[in-house]
């Protein structure tokens, strides 16, 4: 899993049926200091995350298919948690 911050959402009318009724969030990837790396990922929202929130993103297809309950879902990235705090050990 990776840490990201919700930077926006993607609006899509025409898509694979698995996206029907689901929200696509655009999350920027974060480095160890919590800063954006410049990378991003479009993930399906599984928990109701909002703009600006630091989130836990599952970036693996089999886990995503398990959450969606569809063994054939063409989905790899899902927002699976909202992060309260990340403690980084000094050193």
């Amino acid at each position: 899993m990776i840490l990201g911050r919700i930077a926006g959402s993607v609006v899509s009318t025409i898509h694979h049926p698995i996206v029907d009724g689901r929200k696509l969030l655009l999350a920027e990837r974060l480095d160890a200091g919590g800063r954006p790396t410049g990378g991003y990922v479009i993930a399906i929202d599984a928990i109701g995350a909002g703009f600006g929130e630091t989130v836990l993103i599952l970036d693996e297809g089999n886990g995503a298919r398990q959450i969606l309950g569809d063994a054939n879902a063409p989905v790899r990235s899902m927002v699976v948690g909202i992060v309260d705090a990340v403690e980084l050990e000094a050193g």
Partner: protein
Amino acid sequence: MLLGRVIGTVVPATQVAELAATPLLWVQPLDRNGRPEGDPLVCADGTRMAGPGQVIYWVASREAALALDPWFVPVDDAIVGLVDEVRLYSPQDSAE
């Protein structure tokens, strides 16, 4: 999934039989602000509705094979949906 823009169509003269019914499009990956990022790639079009100029989102690897109907054809990138709009949160907030 990542953003991309369709920059062309690809028509193979010869292909493996499994790819016969699969539309192929040439796609330029985009960064989150819509600027080109990285090298173009050939995506199978799972929506069958994308065309040149269209902004799309795509998946790679096993997920790409699952995006198509019939599924599990030998592709490594596929278009999952067409993008109407990318709504970005305030840039100041993401710049921090």
